[in-house]
């Protein structure tokens, strides 16, 4: 009996000793991102890569946006970053500055097919730290049913601020709980586009623009839609039910919406045959905020060569077509947009790529992740009536300057 037991134990030991050897041939790399809507696209890319590279396993991990950055920061500090992960302009500087991202400059990649703003965004002191993934812009979505009922022509590219406000007022029917527009407190798909349409700015070359008259004027116009004109649900209503849900439920007639939401909008049966898109109405000038994501690698990945090879594949035309076909996002690779557009035959999805011509890069800066929560609090104070736009913007500007000076 004892002998048998000893033999078994020995066998177990031998097996555990052998296990790493058996695995050594296969390389597993982890690939983390935040958008569940894009999971099919990312999985398709991972599978295509694995098909061409037997012996490499790509494991995808989705974490919702709110927890993604918390988790990534903890992983960065613990030295346990995923091998490959999505990068965003808000957070890029923090990771670049801490040396957490794999330098892919030596891939000698051809960046000409990508929007130059996106490539530049992920270049840190001459080192390329991410491969461009996609870009997104903001468009105006409208509920055709509500427009038809009121007998008002649909929005088009002749619209300006005054027209938006006028029609929003006409469509607002408070008794039935329908509002013309959703002026929810939001940056990227909220007042940022409006600020640039008014020739103001948010943050450029290390300088915040919240003290500029043009910026404040635009934010005033945006918040007035709710507070003075009453053509948008108020902050309390949005706290209960977000802008997209209200639009999809037919409670607001128009909304600014990012291209990344399209796969969710078109798969919602409540709305998918009732809405269409137009370019954003213009202010003094035309503008739509665009932003590009990137694929980054971890500086300390045990398999830098495999990771670089996979990153190169993610940026390739083939992978861009895959993510476009899976409705993930507008691919960064020029000439592949139509694969994305073709997914949505019933709506004017072309408005999104059209606006890249006058697109403004989503403002970014090395300390943006530190001051963005403050921006949320200050602008919320405008909505709650605690501060005027000028007070909130000036206070915010001073706090950003203070953070940037440190």
């Amino acid at each position, binding site marked *: 009996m004892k002998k048998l037991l000893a033999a078994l134990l020995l066998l177990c030991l031998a097996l555990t000793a052998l296990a790493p050897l058996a695995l050594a041939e296969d390389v597993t790399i982890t690939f983390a991102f935040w958008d569940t809507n894009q999971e099919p696209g990312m999985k398709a890319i991972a599978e295509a890569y694995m098909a061409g590279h037997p012996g490499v396993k790509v494991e995808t991990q989705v974490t919702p946006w709110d927890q993604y950055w918390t988790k990534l920061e903890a992983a960065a500090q613990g030295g346990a970053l995923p091998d490959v992960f999505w990068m965003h302009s808000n957070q890029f500087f923090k*990771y670049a500055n801490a040396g957490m991202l794999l330098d892919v400059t030596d891939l000698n990649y051809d960046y000409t097919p990508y929007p130059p703003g996106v490539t530049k965004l992920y270049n840190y002191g001459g080192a390329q730290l991410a491969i461009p993934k996609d870009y997104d812009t903001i468009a105006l979505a409208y509920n055709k049913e509500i427009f038809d009922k009121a007998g008002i022509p649909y929005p088009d590219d002749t619209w300006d601020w005054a027209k938006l406000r006028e029609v929003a007022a006409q469509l607002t029917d408070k008794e039935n709980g329908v509002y013309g527009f959703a002026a929810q407190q939001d940056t990227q798909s909220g007042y940022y586009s409006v600020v640039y349409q008014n020739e103001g700015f948010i943050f450029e070359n290390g300088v915040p623009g919240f003290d500029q008259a043009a910026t404040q004027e635009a934010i005033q116009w945006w918040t007035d839609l709710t507070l003075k004109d009453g053509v948008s649900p108020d902050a*309390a209503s949005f*706290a*209960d039910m977000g802008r997209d849900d209200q639009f999809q439920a037919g409670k607001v007639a128009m909304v600014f919406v990012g291209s990344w939401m399209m796969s969710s909008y078109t798969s919602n049966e409540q709305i998918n045959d009732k809405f269409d898109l137009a370019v954003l109405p213009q202010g003094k000038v035309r503008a739509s905020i665009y932003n590009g994501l990137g694929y980054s690698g971890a500086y300390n990945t045990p398999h830098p060569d495999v990771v670089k090879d996979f990153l190169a594949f993610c940026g390739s035309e083939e992978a861009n077509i895959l993510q476009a076909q899976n409705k993930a996002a507008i691919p960064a690779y020029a000439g592949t947009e139509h694969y994305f557009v073709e997914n949505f035959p019933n709506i004017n999805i072309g408005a999104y790529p059209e606006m890249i011509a006058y697109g403004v890069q989503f403002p970014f800066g090395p300390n943006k992740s*530190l001051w963005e929560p403050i921006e949320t609090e200050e602008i919320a104070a405008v909505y709650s009536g605690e501060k005027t736009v000028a007070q909130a913007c000036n206070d915010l500007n001073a706090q950003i300057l203070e953070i940037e000076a440190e």
Partner: protein
Amino acid sequence: MTASPVQRDLRISKARNKNEWLWAYLLIAPTIIGLGALNVYPFFDSLYTSLLKSQGLGPTKFIGLQNYAKMFGSAEIWRTTLNTLWYVVLTVPVGVFLALVLAALLNTKIRGRDLYRGIYFLPMVVAPAAIAMVWRWIFNAENGILNQALLMLGIVGPKWLSDPNTALAACAAVGVWSSVGYDLVLILAGLQSISSTYYEASEIDGANWAQQFFRITVPLISPTLFFVILMRMMNSIKQFDTIFMLVKPENPAFKSTATLMVIFFREAFEKFNKGYASAVVVWSMVIIGAITAVQFVAEKKLVYYE
């Protein structure tokens, strides 16, 4: 020279003693190591971090008590401290009272008793995030089941979670709902350990139900109640997940519901100010310590041990 039998016995018992101590240490070692690694070390680390300027992934810098100076100089810390204490006031008395009443009811012989016990305990096994999501729908001002029900009675309900006057109370209701089952189980266990002879004897002496409850049940349950109140207070001060999920920063009611733990999370994991966040945590610990100290003084007067 040979040792006397007595001496020999002493030596053996000493050796046995040593052996027993060794075993005792060995057996508590996992707990002690766990406590050290997960509680004691992080505690001192938080104390130290609160003296640092630690932002993002960059290097840290020792800045002494500057985080505390900044914290106590801000209106936010006093507002959130008040919110936290209000939350305790709104949850602990109601929660413990409800738990006591329900436990007393469930200690009697009623039909379906086990089923009720299960139902009341159910919220404990549901993830707080899921609880918060469901309650968000219940509290929804327009479509929520609560306001719809009120509407049937002809009452237009408030915007529970976005009106600064009701939001904290709404969060407290969720807090009570999700904790009452746990407290109930503890109190029930206490009730069941009371020997029935007391009640039989008092019945012979002619005591009525109220006399039995206040003269026998309450004093004998007081050690359990003390423990439940103590834990509930600590947990209420540390309450984070449901409030965080129910009221977001863009919500107009955010300022009137943000508790110490909510701003701690915002500082540490959204603004990445770990130094300042640690100062907030140390401050909450001081508050918990002070309240607990008062409770231990009260314990000597109010709690009866058999």
